[in-house]
Structure formats: structure tokens, C-alpha cells
């Protein structure tokens, strides 16, 4: 792998950049791999990368139906934060946060992790109590999070309206200064380049259609549109289509898939310094390095695999944005799109063994998977390499829906009474 650096960039600039090599190969599938990862999104690519770098497992294939990073990795609003309430969540997302912080350097790929701060606004007494509960819990768990008064919110995010005259005045906010955004495509490409350089085969435009099993019931091979590929272990990391893939393997997953929409405005000069999220008014916003306002909100109400939602969701999202930032009504929506998110009964992910031996699954990230990408890949690689969960992902078993040990962050942030 040719290292990226200012020196190599300058050197190439004198030669018309003809010396750069492919960032990842386009190999023919081998007959058999130690590990086959189904799904070439950020989580799958990170899993492969850490299998190779942490565990020395390099006989690995990533099988991607379309093109890598083309699903939710390339469709989300790139917000990264780790200020979750419960110990289990704090551990998982902060594990990711710690990896994010050195990721550009580790991958030798500038993923543009920008710790510009994530400010979550409180608009009613219930929000205030809930966020304070988060702040206290986070502090005790060593997670960065602090409470700001409305004036402090305004100072941190000058475009914000803290007028008492709006429908739901800002009553304060929880700020995670370490939070921010990253360039989502670069995350996929950086992991792909790093994994490929260590021997991982990235096989694009190849769909997994079935599973072959040994007489003892364990995993033997995956069937694909490019033939049967032997696999000692299989990890399914297929996000919104996990239910489909696992269905082909004969397993029914406790997930529902729904569209989640996002949009960007036309690019403008810097006018928005941080990430702002509001659960009560219900929208979130940041500005990309290119200048686009990046905006999202909740999911559509109906289960679907179609990456297209209704315009009413877009309208409601912008209602909320323009309520908090009335100066933006004259901005224009440039692009809107949808992704398919897989949601579990407690809205926390599943990183787990399955009833089929040597088949593992990593799914259920719902609307919040991007921020966890490095952490998710890191612990899932551990599970694929050792066959047992990492202590961080042990609570995220499929079994919890049977035992009742749920990790329900969304319920804990319950709506106002």
C-alpha cells in the first residue's frame, strides 16, 4: 500500500498523479475463506480491517451486493457521538469514539473526523431531566458530556434561536464536545484500502443467495451470484437487508426495516459551526465541509425496503429546522434520499452468535449505526476471530429478547409526560 502524505501528494502532482495505485483490488473470489463477511458497508469493512490488523486473520472476503459503502454508510448524516445513557451503550459507543480519534492516522486516510461538538437541545422539563440524567451518567462512565444553559447553547451555536417566543423554547442542552462528524465515504474507502492491503478480498456486485451447512449444522459455504464460496465462519453485516439475508439462511431476525430520509441544502459559506439535535422539535442539522446543510429527522412510519420515503417527512423535518433556525427558510433543498434502517425491539444493535454454528450477525443499528462503525467492527472482528463475544458486545446478544435484558435507550429518553 502506497502511503498517503503531503510529500507523496506533491510528488505525484508533478507527474499528473499517474503513480497512484488502486485503493483496493477487484479480485476473483477464492474457493474458500476463513471468514466471509456479507455486506460491504462501513461495519463490514471495519470488521475485515480489524480481523486482519488485530487478529491476523487475512483470509477474508467481503461480499457486497452493490458497491462498498453504498448503503447506509453513504446515506447517513455522519453524526458521531457517544453520550448514551446505559453502561452497555456508553461502553460500545465510547469504544468507537476512542477509535475514531486516531482513525485518519491509523488508516492513513483522512476521514475528516471533525470534533466540532454535538449539542442536543432540551425544550421541556422532561428533556432537561433526561439530558441531565445522561450528563451525570456519562461523567461517571468517563464519557464527555456537559449541560449548557440556553445562553451557553447560543454562544456555542450562534445561529440558534433561544427566544422565549418560539413554540418550544430552548431550555438548555447537553453538549458532547468530542462529538462531531466524519466523511462517511472516506470511512468506507479507508477501511477498504487498509483491509485490502492486508490481503482481504473485496468482492463487489456479488449477492449472497444462500448458505450451505456441514452435516453438524455448522457453516460450510455461502452461495452467491458468482458461485459457491467456502467459508469457515460467516458474519452477516447487511444493515437494512439483514432480515432478507438471514431469511435466505433460514433464520428469522427480530428486526423491522424502515426508510430513514435525509437531505442537504445547496452549499453556502460557513454558517453553522457544530451539530445540533433536537428530539422534541425533532430534527438535526450540521454543515458539511463542502458547505451543505445536512439535515435529518425520524424514520418513515411504514416498513419498507424501498430507499424512498414520503415528502411529508421531509416537510416536517424542515418545519422543525426552520422553527429553530428561521433564517434558513430561503435556503434550498438540493438532494434528498432515503436509506433502509433495521430496527430491533429495544432499538439497540445485535452483535451476536446465532442458532447456526459459526454464523454471526451484526445488525439492528437503526438510525444510529454510523457513529459506531469502528467500535462495531472492532468487537465483531473479535467475535469472528475467537468465536466468543468481546466483553463490550456480550450484552448485545440475540438472546436478550428472550431473557428480557433489553438495552432500551430510546425508551429511557421517553417522550414528555
Amino acid at each position, binding site marked *: 500500500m502506497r502511503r*498517503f*502524505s503531503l510529500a507523496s*501528494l506533491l510528488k505525484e*502532482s508533478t507527474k*499528473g498523479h499517474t503513480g497512484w*495505485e*488502486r*485503493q483496493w*483490488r477487484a479480485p476473483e473470489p477464492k474457493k474458500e475463506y476463513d471468514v466471509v463477511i456479507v455486506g460491504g458497508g462501513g461495519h463490514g469493512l471495519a470488521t475485515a480491517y480489524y480481523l486482519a490488523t488485530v487478529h491476523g486473520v487475512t483470509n477474508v472476503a467481503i461480499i457486497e451486493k*452493490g458497491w462498498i459503502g*453504498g448503503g447506509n454508510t453513504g446515506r447517513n448524516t455522519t453524526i458521531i457521538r457517544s453520550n448514551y445513557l446505559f453502561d452497555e451503550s456508553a461502553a460500545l459507543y465510547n469504544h468507537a469514539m476512542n477509535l475514531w480519534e*486516531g482513525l*485518519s*492516522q491509523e488508516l*492513513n486516510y*483522512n476521514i*475528516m*473526523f*471533525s470534533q*466540532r461538538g454535538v449539542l442536543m437541545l432540551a425544550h421541556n422539563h*422532561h428533556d432537561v*431531566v*433526561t439530558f*441531565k*440524567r445522561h450528563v*451525570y*451518567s456519562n461523567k*461517571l462512565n468517563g464519557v464527555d458530556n456537559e449541560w449548557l444553559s440556553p445562553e451557553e447553547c447560543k454562544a456555542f451555536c450562534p445561529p440558534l434561536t433561544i427566544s422565549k417566543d418560539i*413554540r*418550544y423554547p430552548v431550555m438548555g442542552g447537553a453538549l458532547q464536545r468530542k462529538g*462531531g462528524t466524519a466523511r462517511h*465515504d472516506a470511512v468506507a*474507502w479507508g477501511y477498504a484500502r487498509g483491509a485490502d492491503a492486508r490481503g482481504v478480498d473485496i468482492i463487489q456486485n456479488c449477492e449472497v443467495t444462500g448458505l450451505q451447512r456441514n452435516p453438524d449444522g455448522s457453516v460450510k459455504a455461502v452461495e452467491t451470484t458468482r458461485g459457491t464460496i467456502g467459508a469457515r465462519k460467516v458474519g452477516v453485516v447487511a444493515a437494512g437487508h439483514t432480515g432478507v439475508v438471514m431469511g435466505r439462511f433460514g433464520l428469522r431476525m427480530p428486526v423491522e426495516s424502515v426508510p430513514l430520509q435525509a437531505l442537504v441544502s445547496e*452549499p*453556502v*459559506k*460557513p*454558517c453553522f459551526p457544530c451539530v445540533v439535535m433536537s428530539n422534541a422539535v425533532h430534527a438535526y442539522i450540521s*454543515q458539511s465541509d463542502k*458547505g451543505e446543510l445536512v439535515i435529518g429527522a425520524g424514520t418513515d412510519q411504514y416498513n419498507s425496503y424501498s430507499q424512498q420515503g414520503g415528502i411529508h417527512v421531509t*416537510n416536517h423535518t*424542515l*418545519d422543525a429546522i426552520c*422553527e429553530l433556525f*428561521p*433564517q434558513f*427558510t*430561503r*435556503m*434550498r*433543498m438540493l438532494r434528498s*434520499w432515503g436509506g433502509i434502517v433495521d430496527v430491533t425491539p429495544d432499538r439497540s444493535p445485535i452483535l451476536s452468535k446465532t442458532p447456526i454454528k459459526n454464523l454471526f450477525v451484526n445488525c439492528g443499528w437503526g438510525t444510529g449505526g454510523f457513529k459506531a462503525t469502528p467500535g462495531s467492527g472492532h468487537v465483531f472482528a473479535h467475535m469472528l476471530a475467537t468465536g466468543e463475544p468481546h466483553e463490550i458486545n456480550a450484552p448485545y446478544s440475540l438472546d*436478550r429478547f428472550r*431473557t*428480557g435484558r433489553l438495552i*432500551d435507550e430510546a425508551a*429511557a429518553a421517553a*417522550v*414528555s*409526560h
Partner: protein
Amino acid sequence: MSQPFRRSSGGHIDRTQPITVSFNGKTLHGYRGDTIASMLIASGSHLAGRSFKYHRPRGILSHGSDEPNALLSVDWRPEKGEGRRDPNNRASVVEARSGLKTATQNHWPSLETDIGAVNDLLSPVFVAGFYYKTFMWPRKFWDKVYEPFIRKAAGLGDAPEVPDADRYANRHAHADILVVGAGPAGLSAALAASEDGSKRVILADEGFKLGGALLNDVTSEIDGKPAAVWVEEMVAQLDARENVIVLPRTTVFGYYNHNHIAMVERVADHRDNAPDGLARERLWQVRASKVIIAAGSHERPLVFENNDRPGIMLAESARAFINRYAVLPGKSLVVATCGASAYRTALDAKAAGMDVKIVDIRLGEDCGPELAEARSAGIDVLTGHTVVKALGTKRVTGVVVAPLGNDGSVGTRRTLTCDCVAMSGGWTPSVHLFSQSRGKLAFDASLDAFLPGQSAQEEVSAGACHGIYDLSEIIADGYKAGGSDTSVSATATFTGFQPVRVLPTDADPKKVKAFIDFQNDVTAKDIKLAVREGFESIEHVKRYTTTGMATDQGKTSNMNALGLVAGLLDRPLPAIGTTTFRPPYTPVTFGALVGPSREDRFEPVRTTAIDPWAVANGAEFEPVGQWRRAHYFPKAGEDMHAAVARECKAVRTSVGIFDASTLGKIEVVGPDAAEFMNRIYTNAWAKLKVGGCRYGLMLGENGFVMDDGVVARLAEDRFHVTTTTGGAPRVFQHMEDYLQTEWPDLDVFITSITEQWAAIAVQGPNARKVVEPFVSDIDMSEGAFPHMAVREGFICGVPTRLFRVSFTGETGFEVNVPVDYAEAVWKTLYEEGRKYDITPYGTETMHVLRCEMGFIIVGQETDGTATPDDVGLSGLVSKKKPDFVGMRSLARPDMLLPDRKQLVGILAKDPNEVLEEGAQVVEDPSLPVPVPMIGHVTSSYFSSNCGRSIAMAMIKGGRARIDQTVWVTTPKGFTEATISTSVFHTVQGEKVDA
């Protein structure tokens, strides 16, 4: 002369209405019917902006909404003050009128002299994706140094900084047929579709004048008439039909499921005198039985060195400026083309008096009759020539051309001087809406274009977006789409082009800047680099180079990029894939999407019938969900603490009155009502007698507490259910969901009656005395009307459902009356209560009083992870019922563990210290991070009745920890506290045990 390049006659402009527009502080002259672009060209200038990355001077590429370069900040009504300026308006579509204040963007200090142009010199470094390869050291520098620098350099115009002074409207409509685009195909389709008068037709076009490309056409005849006359007659006929709505200035931007079409109409910006209050834009949402897409096509630029210099434009756009706007793009024109259509531009330019030369990539034998026609018009045509590069910086001064050998070699260069270039790289049908409708695109190699293939919804494409370029065929296709076959004779049109991706050159391609995506400064070099680095899918190429991601959304660039990638990989073009088109077709103002849902109309404030009384009596309010509720009633000089202390005391010692109207209320009616209640709630309902009340507990499927409330049985088959204020819609939905999907066999109806019944709580030792005098038809004696009973009768002569319930621990009545009578009843009770110093109280006092009694509030003590046992309510879970929602989940092993969080009281060591709600509780604060937490404070108040602070908490294994010392977080650290039981107050007098 201020308009040196204005033609003396012709064009769709109104020379009787001269106008002036401010452009970078200078004055542009023109006429109604002009755009800013045509006025700029009339002045003799093309310079209209600086590019995104390299800050290269840019001109006007197009005459339509696909313009990538000429983006302006426009203040639409500067005379009216602030709030009407916005960035990134395309000069080519801004309908000019006097008074507009426009400015170019993305340069410093000026458009002519831009320091940022140094980036152009650094362009060998600033290639596609260069930022992924550097700016990584030192680590802290990314968001402190590099990123702010990049952010400042990026972006186009400046975002508005003050709230919008305009308003926006919304309209919903149904149509039998919606026609998109009013060019020759769309006009024909709309006419045919509306012919028999039986169908409602909507015709929408993004332009301010209908006619599409026919407006640029001064030579074609249709049915023996000049094209412009034919357009006028068609529009007049459509306007005259009552079943047709004709909408100019209306962009169809979104094609959603079930033929749900979104379009935006520009209503006010073009008006000289827009009445105050007229909406600026209107969002139309149309449900159409059928959609006819007649959206036309986009011309492709040619890709050669410096093809972005001002003065270089698309060939059809040059024709539009000459014919429609009656301005000459220059004096001396070179038409560079790989197809026939650009010859029309050459002929019209020649006829308009310009000096014209044609450079055609095609060999002479590959050309059609257009070649002879041009030559006979006296135009010099070089066939088989390539354009090597353009000369000039802020304005093109010439082009270097060279003959192409049979082997593709580039021969001797020669220079053609000129001051404008019209280029044509062929045509791309506008399949955006078809693709949005989820239709499948099909590649047509003969047209080198994607065309509509298999439909997914009820739509049909017609005309150029359907791959039909011949005028008479376009019109016939329109009629056919509209439902009739009419043969029309129209002038034959030149068709056909030979696609070229990047024009052949003898220059070192590594050093050539030939632009594919103008706005995002993506060159052919960048795309080659992306492919070299393994980005092979078009989606990867797009994302790595940003081609097609600009505000023009790649309308002029996508096919050139796709073709180049296919060529580099030596794969057929469809194998590279095409991107999925998504809404919007062109950028849409947030305001239009928001519509009237702003400010007071963002979300309605729900108020109760007693709200006006609370306002008049000085209440402070708090938002609770959508409701506005009285928080407390301060007297002069009182703060919240003092007011709440007084209110609490009053309820315990005499009587208080409280507006409980926001509580959710649902009537459950039917022969199976009791059975339904049995299944929805954890406790049993069959034995509840008519006239009795019972506290009900409801779980979600996962076994956690979802809602609670008092339920009254009004009749064998009728229950009056109350819910929490915030939970009312959720509970109703939950009930309805089960009724419809799980238990359709139950004969039960549920009705929300929250808005029909107001509830007035009268609480305290003197409550009975206040209520009793006004009640008729109800025996108010203690024996006949005990605690937890309901009676129907009259109060103050109006019907009431009178509940004997208490959420305070004191004797209490909840007077439910129809909302229309509520304020009058409230006032009557209040007047009577003055004898006992009745005190109105708000939500804060209600919270304190119930906390004193240890009553939970769902959503405060519970957070969606608490079981009935966790909050001490296991007694409400029936052991006898065969099933209820959540029962199975309660049996899961983790739900029964002893270390679950349990509801307890928690008392600060310092009785004057009020713990913070949300604070975490630990056993040992001296432990290092992560400090193990045992729970959190859920409710916390100062209780004047108890003479100290009180609080409730959810604590792991809490019921076994009574009297244990713990530590609670504070903003400064920790404070000491003791676990206690959760009942803090003992009520004297009449016993209640709610």
C-alpha cells in the same frame, strides 16, 4: 448604448417595458421577458461568477435550470428592507424586473480580481480527493486548522442571516392527468388530454413563458404556422378550457409513490407590485391518475481544455439568447459540435449578423443535410476537426482547432479567433422524474442515452425526454401520450450526433483542464484519477470526484462522466450504471416545503377551556407535550418556590382547584368492553361495579409500564378511561392497533373524548363543601359516594361525570363536564371556594403533592424500562387472568432478577437541599471512572408539608436498601443521601388509599 448586444427586433421580450437591475452595484438594462443572464449578455459581458474550487472566472453556460456557473445572490425586494435575499440563484432563470439587487459570489475582493484564483495555480495538487491523502498531521490540526480553511474556501454564496420576510403557501390537488413541461410535446399532450372536457388536466412548466424549446426557434413551422404562433394558439386554447389548470413558473420536482407529485410554483418574486401577504412560493402536492412527462432534454457540453471560459456556452443556449432574448452572445461565434442540432444555432447566428464558423468533430461524410445548408448560407465548416483548447481567461478570445487523422491523430493546430463559442456534445433526455418514479432506465446506444424503460407507476414520457428529437414526431408523441392520434406536419429537424467523451488533443492530457462538471470543478483528469484508483462504479466516481453533486445536479455533466468512465474501463456504458435520480429535480426552497407551518403555526398550542381564566389570574405556564398547562399561580412578589409552597399547604389544609383537562380520555364502549379492558390492562375489570373507579396499569408488549390512569365504569358496556397527558395519542393508537389487528372479534369501539370533557380537580379537606352545593341528581353522602366512585348527574345544571378520586391524598373530586361549560363551572366552584380560601394550583404543586404520597408519574418514575414490580405496583398485576398485553414478557428471567431498579424514596442529608432530578446515585463516590451507578433520582421537590426536601429514585435492589447511605451527583460533585420508603406524608382525616 447600454445594451450594445441587444438585437433591434424580435425575441419574446417586451420592448415597451424597459427595466434596470443592479448587478454588483452596476446597472444592467433590459426588458420584461429578460433573465439576468440575457441582460448581462446584452451589456456585452459573460463574466458571472467564480468556480467552486479553483475560482476560475465563469460565464453563462446555459439558458435554463441546468446552469452550473452563473449563480447570483439576489435581494428580491431591497426596497422593503431585510429578509428577502438568498444565494445561489441561477442567472439564466431569474426573471428580471426592475429593482432586483444581484451580486456574484465566491470571490474576494471582486469578481474581476479574485485572490482565490491562486487555487487554479495549485490545481496540480488539488486534484480529486486530494484531501483524503493529506491534512492528517499533526492530528489536532484537522478541525482546528485545515478544516476551517477548507470550509471557508468551499461553499458558494452566503446563507441568509435574518429570518425570512416572505411567507409560503401549500396546496393539494387532484388531477386525472398531470402534464410536466409545456414544450411541443407537453402542449400537444395537454391539448389532447383535455379535448373532450371530461378530464381534469394540470399543465406545469418551470419556465415563465410556455413553449419550451419552441421559444428559441424562429425557423420551424407547425401546421404551416411559425412555431411561436403555434405555441400562442395552443396556450390560448388550453387557457380557455375550464378543465385545464395551466401553471407556468412551476417546477415539478418530486415524483413519489402512488403518483404523488410535488411541485413548486413561484408566485411573487417576478411581480413588480406583489400585494403584501402574497405567498412567495406555493408547494403543490398533486395526486394524478396519470402523469405525462414531457420534460425535454439537456444539451451536453464538449470536453476540451479551458472549455469553461466565459463566452463558451451550449449551442442551444446561444440560439435561445439570439432568438428568444434577442441578444447576441458576441460578434464572432465558433460553433463546436459533434452533431447536427448545433447547425441551427450557426444558421440563426449567421442570420442575426454574427460572424460564424463551425468546427465539427464528425467527418464530412458522417454529416447530414445540415452541412450543405450551412455552407450554402456562407458558413465556413471545418469537418473532422477537434477543438484542442480555448484561449482567453475572463473571456474566450479564440479556439485552437486541429484536423483529426483517420487514426485519431491530431494534426496541425490553427487558431480561430472569436469572442463566443457555442458547443454541443449531443443530448441527454431528462429522465429525472421517470427515474424518481422508480421506473427502470434502458440504455439506447444509437442515441447514446438512457431512456425510460419499464414503468413502475402510471406515467408515460413524451417528446425529447422519450428520446424523440424530430419536431413533428415530438408533437405526434405528445398527442399520443395525451390520448389521441393526430398527424401534424412540422419542419423536419436535424437529428443525430456522434458521441465524443473528451475531445482528442495533442497536448499532454495530464496538464489539460477540460471540465466535465463545471460547478464542482471536476475535470476529465479527475475522473481518470478516480478510475485509476479503483473507483469504478459511477456512484464511487461521483462521490470521489464530486462530479454531478453540485447545485445543477449533474444535468450537463452526468453523461459525459459516465461515458468517460465506460471508455476508460472499456465496458459498455450501462455496465457502469447510472445514478438513481432523487427529488428534487431542481433545488427547492425550504420555505416552500415548510409552507405555513411556521411561527405560530409550527405546531398548534393546545389549551384547555380554563386556560383563559388561568391567563387572567396570572398563571405561569409550562409546555406539556402539545399542551400549555398552568405551572403555578404566583401572587405578587412570589417566586415559584413560594407559590408552590403556598399552594401545597392550601390543598393539605383547606382546598385547592386544579385544571386536569389535559389528561387523555378515551371512552371504551361495547358488549366486549370489559373483556377488552381485561386484555389491555394488567388488572381485572370484570368485577368492577358500575359506578366504580379503578386505577389501571397498562404495559407495552415488552412488559414495561406504558401508561396508567383512573378508569370509571359508567355502564356494563361503557368505560371512561383516563390516560397521562402525553400518553393519550399513544394509548389510543395502542388500543386501536390491538382492536384492529389482534382482536377483531371483540365488539368494542373506542373514542377519544379528551377534547369533549374538561376535568376540574377539587382537592383538600374542604373539597366536598365546595362541590356539593352545585350537584344535583347525585347522593353526595360519604356512604353513597365513596372514594373511587363515579356518578353521573348535574353540576351547576350541566351534565357531569363526577369522580371521587384523589391524586393528592386528600379528599378529592374530579368534576368532568362538557368543555363548553367548563369555564363557567370552574368560576362557580372558585367563587364558592373563596369561603374556604380556595387556591388554584398548577402542575408543579400537583407533582409535589403526589410525590408526598409516593404516587408515581408514568414517564417520570418510569422510563420505558420499568416493570410493575419495579415501581411497587405488582399488586395491580392480575395472577388470574389468562392473558393481557405484556404478560408473557413479565415472565422473562431478567424481569424477575432481584437487582432490578426499584422505586424508593431518597432523602438528602441536608433537608434543605433539593436533589437534582436526573442525578445519578452511587455507593462509593471515591471510586475511579467508570464509577458503578446504582440508580437515579426521578422526582425531587421541596415539600413545605414535610418541612424538607423529598425525592424518589429508581435504585438497584432499592427496597432492600432502606436506610442505606448513598451519594447523589450534583453539578459540583456528590451529596450524601439516605434511601427511604417512598411515602413521605401521612394524611389526616378522611382516609384515601388511591
